[in-house]
């Protein structure tokens, strides 16, 4: 019902698109009917009414999911049409951007989709397929050029090569630091599990690191890394410098350690005593027990830690731009500096999409690694 209200608000009250004569002047809000050719506007309005009816009546989850998918596709297509319709021909300064109505509708249908997917409880593989289908749909619209008239893509068109460069850096920062923290954190976690006295000390230290705000940690690391670059031969050659990606990488790595180590410890501690006893009983060595019994049983908890780290890193990597580390944050902070909100969106939207995709894929992985008897509980 809340969703239906949102749909109604998004359709009737809030403006669907904003038209601006150029990039930075305040825009002029347009409702659905004003933003589209009459026939298209009526079609979209009709569709929204049908969708709202499906939401209000107690319909099966599958139908709701279908309604959400169709509506999402429709608003995605129609916002593209809006851009071509509103922009005067041969005018390259005018900007058409989605307005609050579009975002509210997007949010409402995404919520509806998420809700019906939760109710349907699809298997993890199916969820990943749904994700791939959604991304493929968005890519298809992007490639077809339907969205080219929208302001975000106008910002993109001017910076296409920089965009992909920063995207690469963003992903490299987030994944690289994740990888490093798993390589270090997993053995450290196992060690903390085995050597009791070490545990509190290590975990408290890592906890302390988490309390330092990210921009400060990035900044603080500039000094030692700068010193290393100057004084350790060869360090500068492999890219260690005071500013840039190196401090960002180290900071993300330090933040990532706590979830990885803590979840490894918790996961290993949760291995049932009987499983260990039985393994010892059939004569498994310590090493065999670790790799054959303990780690596989602790895997869901460890993967949960990795999920937290990945989603967190994708978000934090935006801040790396403040110290010259690159990533999508470059666009966000440039946009804030120029009060050009389309530029902010160009940085923020891919970040959010990346974080979502990572969360969905890892959630599916976690579920696949959870022994079937507790699957009901984790869902």
């Amino acid at each position, binding site marked *: 019902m809340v969703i239906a209200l949102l749909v109604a608000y998004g359709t009737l009250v809030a403006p669907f698109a904003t038209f601006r004569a150029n990039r930075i002047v305040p825009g002029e809000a347009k409702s659905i009917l004003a933003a589209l050719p009459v026939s298209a506007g009526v079609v979209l309005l009709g569709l929204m009414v049908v969708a709202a009816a499906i939401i209000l009546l107690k319909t099966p989850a599958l139908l709701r999911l279908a309604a959400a998918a169709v509506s999402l596709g429709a608003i995605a297509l129609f916002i593209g049409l809006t851009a071509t319709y509103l922009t005067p021909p041969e005018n390259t300064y005018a900007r058409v951007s989605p307005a609050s109505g579009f975002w509210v509708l997007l949010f409402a249908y995404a919520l509806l989709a998420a809700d019906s997917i939760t109710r349907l409880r699809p298997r993890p593989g199916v969820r990943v397929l749904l994700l791939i289908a959604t991304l493929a749909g968005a890519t298809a619209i992007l490639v077809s050029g339907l969205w080219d008239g929208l302001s975000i893509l106008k910002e993109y068109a001017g910076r296409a090569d920089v965009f992909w460069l920063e995207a690469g850096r963003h992903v490299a920062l987030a994944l690289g630091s994740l990888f490093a923290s798993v390589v270090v954190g997993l053995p450290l976690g196992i060690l903390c599990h085995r050597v009791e006295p070490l545990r509190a000390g290590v975990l408290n230290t890592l906890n302390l690191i988490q309390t*330092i705000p990210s921009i400060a940690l990035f900044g603080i690391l500039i000094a030692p890394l700068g010193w290393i670059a100057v004084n350790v031969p060869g360090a500068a050659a492999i890219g260690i410098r005071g500013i840039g990606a190196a401090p960002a990488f180290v900071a993300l790595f330090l933040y990532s350690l706590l979830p990885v180590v803590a979840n490894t410890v918790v996961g290993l501690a949760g291995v049932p005593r009987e499983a260990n006893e039985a393994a010892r009983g059939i004569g498994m060595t310590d090493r065999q027990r670790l790799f054959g019994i303990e780690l596989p049983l602790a895997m869901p908890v460890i993967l949960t830690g990795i999920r937290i780290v990945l989603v967190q890193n994708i978000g934090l990597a935006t801040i790396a731009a403040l110290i010259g580390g690159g990533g999508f944050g470059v666009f966000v902070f440039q946009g804030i500096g120029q009060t050009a909100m389309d530029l902010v969106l160009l940085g923020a939207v891919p970040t959010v999409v990346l974080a979502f995709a990572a969360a969905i894929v890892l959630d599916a992985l976690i579920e696949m690694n959870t022994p079937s008897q507790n699957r009901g509980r984790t869902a």
Partner: protein
Amino acid sequence: MRAWLPSLLRAALLAFLLAFLVSPGWFEPLLKPLVQDNAPAIYNQGSLLTLTLLHLRTVAIATIAAIVIAVTLAILVTRPFGAEFLPLSRSLVNVGQTFPPVAVLALAVPALGFGEKPTLVALFLYGLLPIFENTLTGLTTLPPSVMEAARGAGMTDRQRLFKVEVPLAMPVILAGIRLSVVISLATATIGSTVAAKTLGEVIIAGLQSNNIAFVLQGGLIVGALAVLIYDGLSAIEAAMARRAGL
């Protein structure tokens, strides 16, 4: 000896923090080696104490708002009439947690303009999730025997909620609040990129003028605040848990 050592360390940290805030000049010699070319070693574009108080105020407002909304929502969806919304609110929480704070902040700017407002909104939204999730956990994992007993003693729904459920769930709720406060303390510094008055200002000024001393003092004040508040809330939580007999 071990029992009082942590308290002593905390007291020392608190004293150190207060001394630094009230009279940063005393610590200038410590930070001096970090700066080059006679740049100022102590933040000189505003009082550190004022900024700290503004920082704390921002976090406090956002957190209190988040507590009120999150706890109310969690109570509503755990009542029989709200059960319909439970799966929906769960997915909402999951979705919200994947939103990076910078993105929230950046997206709030077009709607609210620069300054304190977008920061408050970002902190509020980001602070909602841990509290909501923990309140939900606290309210849905109460021992069934206790609930039966309360019903058996003839308590109304309302009495049960306020005299049994909420007090029993309180330690878990507090743990969520603690998490939320610590995240907010750190996230508030990012608010200074959109011109909010927080300790992030000191850090950003340091980054822009290549002054490590600024970055360090800004970061350490926030870190110290977070540790002290975290410990303080943990102590309250432990006391509550003891009173609830858990």
